[in-house]
């Protein structure tokens, strides 16, 4: 049994390829914990960012600057009464959030956080992701039907029609990115996610910049389609509160509703990770081929530590600016502890960066490298997450017929055109 654990350390392939179920399970648990923490953080950031966009402050009371607000929300949702409509189909009502949750979390099996940091690098990775995210539509449809009420049913049908329509444009944008992976010497591309990032590394260019502006257009189409897929603003007609009284999850309360929210945020993070892997170079730091000297490696490996140092500095400034009233003492202490925690993590990362720069295979160097891959990946995904919140704060909602018109009459022709042009330019350029 220790052989099982020890034999994988130091390997350069994913646990799926090495056939090591124990480490695959560990990776799955880490991803599950990480995504849950990310969803909680995303909840807080969304409320604070939306508030600041609307020139107000957002949650400020529950913890220092509302940092404990998501925990309070989670506790409230867990303690709420579990109401099931009388005529609702019990089994289907119970299983509907689980379908959405399973579909959202299964995508993480193929997402690579590093050249061997994925649960399993399937050689049909991107096809698997497209299929599993289309299983999320089933959860929505079944949730609306199981509620046995008008608004949820209409909301579910609208929501699922929207998701199915934008899946087509999403798939075509993905195909044009896959097409770009075959623009190499041997002319064979790959569907595996790690292979796509390695193709970007070999060709020396992120696919967003390849055959400019075709790569950029493909990313823009995918970005718009993924907002429609996850039912976020400005495509959130099906679940907006002023329209259909929260659409397909109207009748869900308490823990079941939180499962829907969890699956929505997890799906957002998952499709953003797909966009980052396909077009933005995945885990690669900026300019890996151009600036290849060890000095540049060291500078870029300082970035994780410096980011946490910056966050700790912001938290310290927040502590200093707290009102000196006695009512704020606990919040002041809490924020100072949080700032100290961030500073400690920053110190750890900086020490690892400095210690790992000399040797190539020591534990510190490999730890440093792994942290670097995960950091750049998470940073790019965080940019997309922030864009989601920005769109919600800025743009008004589309009416449903406008939404469907855009999906079929604008996005589909443009993505087909991008695909054909990418193929033509690829043949000419080779």
């Amino acid at each position: 049994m220790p052989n099982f654990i020890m034999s994988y350390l130091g390997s350069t392939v994913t646990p799926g390829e090495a056939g090591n179920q124990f480490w695959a399970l560990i990776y799955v648990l880490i991803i599950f914990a990480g995504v849950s923490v990310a969803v909680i953080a995303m909840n807080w950031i969304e409320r604070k960012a939306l508030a600041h966009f609307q020139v107000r402050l957002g949650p400020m009371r529950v913890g220092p600057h509302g940092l404990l607000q998501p925990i309070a929300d989670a506790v409230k949702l867990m303690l709420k009464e579990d109401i099931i409509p009388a005529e609702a189909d019990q089994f289907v009502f119970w299983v509907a959030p689980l379908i959405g949750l399973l579909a959202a979390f299964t995508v993480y099996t193929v997402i690579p956080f590093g050249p061997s940091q994925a649960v399993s690098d399937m050689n049909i990775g991107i096809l698997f992701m497209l299929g599993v995210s289309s299983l999320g539509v089933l959860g929505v449809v079944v949730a609306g039907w199981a509620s046995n009420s008008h608004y949820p049913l209409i909301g579910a049908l609208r929501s699922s029609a929207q998701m199915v329509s934008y899946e087509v444009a999403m798939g075509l944008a993905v195909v044009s990115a896959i097409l770009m992976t075959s623009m190499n010497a041997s002319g064979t591309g790959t569907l595996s996610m790690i292979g796509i990032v390695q193709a970007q590394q070999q060709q020396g260019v992120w696919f967003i910049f390849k055959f400019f502006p075709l790569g950029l257009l493909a990313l823009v189409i995918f970005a718009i389609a993924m907002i429609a897929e996850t039912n976020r603003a400005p495509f959130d007609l099906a679940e907006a509160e002023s329209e259909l009284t929260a659409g397909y999850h109207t009748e869900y309360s308490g823990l079941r509703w939180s499962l829907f929210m969890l699956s929505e945020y997890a799906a957002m993070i998952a499709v953003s990770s797909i966009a980052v892997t396909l077009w933005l170079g995945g885990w690669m730091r900026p300019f890996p081929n151009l600036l290849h000297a060890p000095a540049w490696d060291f500078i870029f490996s300082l970035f994780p530590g410096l980011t946490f140092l910056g966050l700790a500095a912001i938290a310290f400034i927040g502590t200093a600016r707290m009102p000196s009233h006695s009512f704020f003492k606990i919040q002041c202490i809490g924020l100072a502890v949080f700032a100290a925690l961030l500073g400690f993590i920053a110190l750890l990362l900086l020490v690892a960066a400095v210690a790992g720069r000399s040797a190539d295979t020591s534990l510190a160097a490999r730890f440093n490298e792994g942290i670097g891959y995960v950091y750049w990946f998470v940073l790019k995904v965080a940019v997309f997450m922030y864009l989601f919140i920005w769109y919600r704060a800025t743009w008004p909602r589309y009416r449903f017929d406008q939404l469907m018109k855009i999906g079929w009459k604008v996005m589909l022709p443009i993505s087909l055109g991008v695909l054909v042009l990418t193929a033509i330019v690829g043949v000419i350029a080779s």
Partner: protein
Amino acid sequence: MNPGLNAALNSGMAPVATPWFFYALAGMAVVSALLVITLRNAVHAALALIVTLLSVASLYLMLYAPFVTGVQIVVYAGGIMVLFLFVIMLVNIERSSKEHRFNRIWPAGLAAACALLALFVSAFVKGKALFADRGMPLPESSNTQQIATMLYGEAGRMGQYTFAFEIASLLLLVAILGAVIMTKKKI
């Protein structure tokens, strides 16, 4: 005894815990197929069919056919079943959940199906030796590439199935047109 399996084991391609996974997935597929044909509520039957489709997709994965797995999940489980659920919601009337599940001629149907089952069993028992492996299984990592070569051709030649592929796209066009026209209220 089984040249294909031995070759697979020797080339390091044998998957983990194969017999257990096979029996679990096959059992799940058959049990949910049984549920599809016996459940009274159409939505429950559709959910059971989704479980069947996903189990069959996993069986394809065990047969080293990853691309067919992907196509099955995307098209069947993610597209056709959504279509079925939409239609069930459109035509779902309360009366159908209180009627008998089986139609008037169900004994004759059951007898015919039992005859078919007897035929299959006799074919398997008598022809057991026919189903030994005959060729080397192809590597899984180039599966998509090879299917693409068969479908699209390479190096200036048409593939073996390129013509059939184009006809299939025409078939889909006809199906789309047919479905749209049939469901219009005024043609």
